[in-house]
């Protein structure tokens, strides 16, 4: 009988219970899917990094011969008649001399620091056309000790006509082993699918492009690697000897190398964990697990609080009946059991559904990671730990909280329960806020005070709204990230083609082509930067500041830095910085900042740079052109259109994330608003009827009873803006400091307006049913026996 009574009582609340179930499912689902999904990557990844001896740090070096290098070339390389401008150029002239020089550099490092094992890491980037789209492959030279290649399928290339690529790229482009790829007009047969532990992201520059649809890692035979015409990039991969740690390395090397005169050629040193291309997966796994816990905990706490409110509400509505049962001699346990039973049979299936949906979602979740990351994976397997955390813990909490609430009400005497509840005091918030609301109209006062009446409900509302607002704002701040990083830059300039000249030649230009000097590795105030020498009067590469004003002419007075360089290194207009190019150095003042997020880059007057490099003003190594450049005239020709295409693909990925987050926030926010507003209508049933009787119309009552939600919802939204903005800033700062990559989140007025519009839509969606219920409450309710 008691069971039937509780069942009928709960049946009346079926919509709220159903939506509550959705929240519980969501909480359990998020945790399970992320935990198991990440688990499917974590274990094999650890094993893979171990087997392939992943680098523990990487060092970048100047591609420019220093005095000591020049001495080496002069004394040890009789075949090299003139010291080239770059070490990569030296390789074309004399391979042995190049390797000898770099071996010297590696020996210098190991002589300065103990416990390090080093290996040269060489690569070449090849742009190629695949089915009408510009693609890029980074060919790595196979290593012997560190960052060993790992084959997930097929074999290493055994002859000069074979290539190994990533499985992710192959899948994205429907390629299988045995198919061919055409690079530099030569067909290569795919021999296998390869992974490199120092490229868990196919990220070849500071720009956040790591899509596996247009980019792949590649492996050729060593001989074929050398045959490629492309410029060789080189850096150092390193591991520690046993017992040496990251912390030791930071103290001994990272804090020291910049002051070490023998290591001027080292431009940057990054621990793997700080190196996005190799170590972002560590932060991703840790971050993913933390996000799973925080998100599901947040949603679970919203669910738990709502369950608490609902249980309390149901029991209050049944207090008379409970009083009678108690007076008839029923024990507290007998009365409690049906409630606990129904809470258990309603919540457990929701948690279990969430868990199993999570198990189903884990494999796609794992695959989402593998869309981006280049890692081996294993099939997702359920674990006892995940089951306990995703199912038993929240279920236990729900039952305990419900039990406490039920027992609290049951602890009252039967006679107390038989009478309506008497409010014996106003809560803290009501008392505190009363003073502030003194001068307001009574209807406005009611709007606020009705919300303060139930602190738990109020807290759930604020948490739910904050959560929804934060997600919406975060989503919008991600809109256009790739545009700001790359697209805007190339869109604002007219150098559609970039031609890199042969190493020893000075570039020749025709027509509207313009001469430029690009130095991939220069030192500006102890920082390794990309330096570009431009003509202050050039037409193809105008520099614009934040306000869109052209500042190219300012190059006559000093250097212009990019926004990303300014933010990462904390420098700005007016700062005097020492520029080191090869052996030469000169102080320059920063005269402008361009609105660019293309990495640590600075612009200088081309003549100034040529003088530093060659003591002449005519030198250049690059040509910019608005029209297509012939590949016959240059060592490499790059089309900026190809880069824009890649940026577009990445932006699409970001956009998908934006949509998913907005939809999730609207769903959760609307459910919270729905449950709370409907509860509020039920709680104020008699007040609403009384207001109607007094002569208030539905609109006025709506404002009084539900208006507070909108006011505090918008209030929460507005408070969330600076919090979100602060967090975005912290995220940007963290990325810049940790990975030296600038993620240009941006909050613009239209983001705020659009977010607010979505937020208000969310509110009206959620409150729609409550408003309808409000208008249906009859006037006679006020006459019934009830005490508010």
């Amino acid at each position, binding site marked *: 009988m008691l069971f039937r009574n509780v069942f009928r009582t709960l049946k009346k609340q079926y919509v709220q219970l159903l939506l509550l179930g959705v929240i519980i499912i969501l909480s359990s689902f998020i945790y399970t899917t992320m935990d198991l999904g990440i688990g499917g990557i974590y274990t094999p990844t650890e094993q893979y990094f171990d087997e392939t001896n992943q680098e523990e740090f990487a060092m970048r070096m100047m591609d420019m011969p220093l005095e000591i290098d020049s001495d080496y070339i002069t004394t040890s390389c009789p075949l090299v008649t003139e010291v080239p401008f770059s070490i990569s150029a030296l390789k074309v002239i004399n391979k042995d001399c190049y390797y000898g020089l770099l071996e010297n550099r590696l020996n210098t490092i190991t002589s300065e620091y103990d416990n390090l094992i080093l290996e040269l890491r060489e690569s070449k980037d090849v742009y190629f056309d695949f089915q009408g789209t510009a693609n890029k492959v980074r060919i790595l030279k196979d290593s012997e000790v560190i960052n060993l290649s790992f084959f997930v399928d097929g074999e290493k290339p055994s002859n000069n006509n074979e290539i190994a690529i990533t499985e992710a790229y192959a899948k994205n482009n429907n390629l299988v082993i045995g198919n061919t790829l055409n690079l530099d007009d030569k067909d290569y047969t795919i021999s296998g699918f390869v992974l490199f532990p120092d490229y868990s992201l196919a990220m070849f520059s500071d720009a956040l492009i790591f899509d596996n649809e247009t980019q792949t890692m590649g492996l050729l035979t060593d001989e074929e690697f050398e045959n490629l015409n492309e410029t060789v990039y080189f850096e150092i991969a390193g591991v520690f000897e046993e017992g040496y740690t990251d912390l030791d390395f930071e103290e001994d090397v990272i804090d020291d190398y910049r002051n070490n005169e023998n290591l001027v050629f080292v431009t940057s040193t990054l621990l793997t964990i700080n190196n996005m291309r190799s170590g972002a997966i560590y932060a991703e796994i840790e971050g993913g697990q933390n996000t799973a816990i925080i998100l599901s905990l947040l949603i679970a706490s919203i669910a738990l609080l709502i369950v608490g409110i609902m249980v309390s509400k149901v029991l209050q509505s049944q207090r008379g009946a409970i009083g009678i049962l108690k007076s008839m001699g029923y024990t507290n346990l007998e009365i409690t059991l049906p409630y606990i039973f129904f809470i258990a049979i309603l919540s457990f299936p929701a948690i279990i559904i969430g868990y199993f949906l999570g198990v189903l979602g884990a494999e796609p979740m794992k695959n989402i990671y593998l869309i981006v990351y280049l890692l081996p994976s294993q099939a997702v397997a359920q674990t006892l730990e995940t089951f306990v955390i995703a199912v038993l813990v929240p279920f236990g909490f729900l039952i305990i909280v419900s039990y406490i609430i039920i027992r609290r009400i049951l602890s009252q005497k039967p006679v107390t329960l038989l009478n309506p509840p008497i409010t014996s005091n106003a809560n803290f918030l009501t008392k505190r806020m009363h003073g502030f609301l003194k001068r307001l109209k009574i209807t406005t006062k009611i709007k606020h005070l009705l919300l303060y009446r139930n602190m738990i409900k109020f807290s759930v509302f604020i948490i739910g709204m904050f959560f929804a607002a934060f997600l919406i704002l975060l989503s919008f701040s991600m809109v256009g990230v790739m545009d700001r990083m790359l697209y805007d830059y190339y869109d604002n300039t007219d150098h559609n083609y970039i031609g890199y000249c042969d190493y020893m030649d000075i570039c020749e230009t025709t027509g509207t082509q313009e001469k430029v000097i690009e130095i991939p590795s220069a030192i500006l105030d102890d920082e390794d930067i990309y330096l570009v020498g431009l003509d202050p009067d050039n037409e193809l590469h105008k520099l614009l500041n934040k306000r869109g004003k052209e500042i190219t002419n300012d190059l006559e007075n000093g250097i212009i830095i990019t926004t990303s360089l300014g933010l990462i290194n904390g420098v700005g207009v007016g700062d005097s910085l020492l520029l080191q190019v090869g052996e030469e150095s000169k102080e320059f003042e920063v005269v402008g900042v361009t609105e660019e997020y293309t990495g640590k880059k600075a612009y200088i007057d081309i003549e100034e740079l040529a003088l530093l490099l060659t003591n002449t003003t005519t030198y250049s190594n690059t040509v910019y052109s608005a029209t297509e450049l012939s590949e016959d005239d240059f060592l490499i020709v790059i089309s900026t259109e190809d880069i824009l295409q890649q940026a577009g693909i990445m932006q699409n990925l970001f956009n998908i994330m934006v949509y998913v987050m907005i939809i999730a926030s609207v769903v959760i926010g609307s459910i919270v608003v729905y449950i709370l507003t409907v509860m509020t209508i039920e709680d104020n049933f008699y007040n609403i009827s009384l207001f109607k009787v007094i*002569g208030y119309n539905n609109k006025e009552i709506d404002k009084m009873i539900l208006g507070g939600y909108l006011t505090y919802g918008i209030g929460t939204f507005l408070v969330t803006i600076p919090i979100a903005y602060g967090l975005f800033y912290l995220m940007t700062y963290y990325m810049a400091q940790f990975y030296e990559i600038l993620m240009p989140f941006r909050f613009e007025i239209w983001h705020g307006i659009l977010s607010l519009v979505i937020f208000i839509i969310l509110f009206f969606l959620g409150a729609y049913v409550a408003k309808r219920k409000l208008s249906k409450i009859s006037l006679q309710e006020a006459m019934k026996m009830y005490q508010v």
Partner: protein
Amino acid sequence: MSIKLDNVTKTYFTGEVETHAVKNVDLEIKNGEFVVLLGPSGSGKSTMLNIISGLDNPTSGKISIDDEIISDMNAKQLTKFRRDNLGFIFQQYNLLQTLSVKENVEVGREVSKLPFTVEEVLEQVGLTPQTTKYPFQLSGGEQQRVSIARAVVKNPKIMFCDEPTGALDEEMAKEVLGILQKLNETYKTSVVLITHNPSIGAMADRIIKLNSGEVVEIIENKTKLKASEISWG
């Protein structure tokens, strides 16, 4: 304001069962009159009050207050009519617990065009010292006086009272009735009060007795008693 009921009937349908809560009632209540609707439980008092006050619609018949036919009004018009002309007091006080005495009265004042001041009304009901207190700090009688003040502050032309003393003891009930009587005399507000307590009829201008939804007797009081003089039955 005078109220006129012409052949008013209210029928409830429960499945195939018809219940006539009010049957063919013709009645007139004059401006400034204090009328008591008297009858046992189930006699149709509350239904009658709901219909007269526009809280509910009659099944048939016509109800007019002055020249306005309220039985023809839609919900919006009725809301406006109640707002401008009527005050209500119920057995349950329905006070907002988070508002002080003064603020509860302000709830009634807010919708009125020509309201009294809150202070004036609280003085009339003898609650000036309790102005800043909350409902839970007041006795039942005091809470009912707050609900009277909330109804009166609107300066209504007609006051409808549904068992206003039903939850009070004799002493408190007489206090409350005294206030209603005083308001009726001071502001010439028409009062329609329903009760099952025959003693209260002694203070009214007219007693309208109801039974099974029909007016069975109308008694005019030649000599009205003061509320405090009523012998509580």
